[in-house]
């Protein structure tokens, strides 16, 4: 049985390697965009929400609504709905680069909500402390909130990354390729179940590596 898996792996080695690179390419871009924009939107939700320093029901309602809508549309439909936007930005609705757009949107929405929760978990007195020490709003965010919430944020980003890996598997619908697409098109549809299982095992290994790395970093930087 193992021989059969080794044989399949050898046959599809180049394809698996190419698909892995496509997955990593989509993932890294989406992760980077989600990290930066998700962090800022999460902060905006935090400061405009109940108890926030710039409490504003309208801004919170609109931002929170957009985040919820992005997360509630079934992802496979979201990919299709967003094709015109991909065309507007990249000139094409299909391919690996076009796949990075819906993946980034879902990453931003997922991470922003995590960030809001992580910041809400920080001691409520921290704003008064930052004010009394002379900090402005940006310094409050960088020197106080991010410092104190950092281990929670690392774990949240780890979860977002794993979600992105999962979402990336359906990118084949717009020609994004990747491991998930190879497992379905070459594995499942072609009755090549050993290929499908090889890819599932690769995905499990990636998730394990990401989660373990996230846990180690979060534990190391949490000094509280």
């Amino acid at each position: 049985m193992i021989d059969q898996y080794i044989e399949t792996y050898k046959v599809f080695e180049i394809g698996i390697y190419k698909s892995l690179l496509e997955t990593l390419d989509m993932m890294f871009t989406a992760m980077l965009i989600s990290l930066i924009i998700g962090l800022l939107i999460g902060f905006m939700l935090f400061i405009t929400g109940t108890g926030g320093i710039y409490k504003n029901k309208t801004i919170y309602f609109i931002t929170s609504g957009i985040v919820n809508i992005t997360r509630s549309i079934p992802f496979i439909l979201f990919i299709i709905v967003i094709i015109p936007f991909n065309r507007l930005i990249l000139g094409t609705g299909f391919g690996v680069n076009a796949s990075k757009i819906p993946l980034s949107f879902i990453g931003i929405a997922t991470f922003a909500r995590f960030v809001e929760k992580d910041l809400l978990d920080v001691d409520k007195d921290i704003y008064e402390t930052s004010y009394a020490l002379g900090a402005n709003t940006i310094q409050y965010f960088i020197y106080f909130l991010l410092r104190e919430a950092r281990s929670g944020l690392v774990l949240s980003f780890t979860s977002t990354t794993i979600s992105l890996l999962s979402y990336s598997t359906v990118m084949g619908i717009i020609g994004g390729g990747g491991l998930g697409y190879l497992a379905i098109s070459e594995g499942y549809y072609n009755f090549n179940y050993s290929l499908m299982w090889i890819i599932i095992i690769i995905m499990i290994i990636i998730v394990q590596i990401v989660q373990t790395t996230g846990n180690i970093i979060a534990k190391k930087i949490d000094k509280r």
Partner: protein
Amino acid sequence: MIRFENVSKDFIVNDKKTRVINHITLSIEKKEIYGLVGQTGSGKSTILRLMNGFIEPDDGDIYLMDEKLDEKTKHRLVKDTSMIFQSFNLLGNLNVIENVLLPSKIRKENKKDNIRKAQKLLSFVGLSNLEQSYIRNLSGGEKQRVAIARTLMTNPKLIFCDEPTSALDEKTSYEILKLLKDINEKFETTIVVVSHDISVIKALCNRVAIIERGKVADIISLKTKDLRPISYKEALLSD
């Protein structure tokens, strides 16, 4: 140093506007250690937060270092003040010296000079050996000393203390009060202390405002005694 002219403040409690500070007028002089004493909920901590501009009055004017405190001036003026909190409010993810250095980092001051200054201040508060320790490993008294060193980092003209010893035991409280008194004498810093503990106020303050239901009920001048440590036995047997 600080002037309150007919200051009032309302809070919304259970959807109802409630007046917590009611037409307060008071003045605090330079180099003074001024106490605000009163029962829990009397409004003394609110007065402290009005003084440093963290909250704004609904009526009246506040002057800090001869300048009117408002939305435009408060971020500049607050940089000449500092605050010591009841629960220390240190950052758990920073070690002792990083906490002390934080105010100078905010002010974007020269790092090298500041490290030397932070080390000197840690020595002044008696914590030179704990520079690299994290806050979770410190006792309550040590945490308050770190907070005091952090306060002194920017040479504030004014220090606000909100119940600085209420989370500490008798002996540690004495040490912290002694430190505050030394700061007042050595650096000529004006100190405003909020406390519900009469012994703290008596040990430290030159003048005291008694706050009752958001109003100044009385202002009393005190002759402070020399601070000396007392044992639990002495504390229990004293009148």
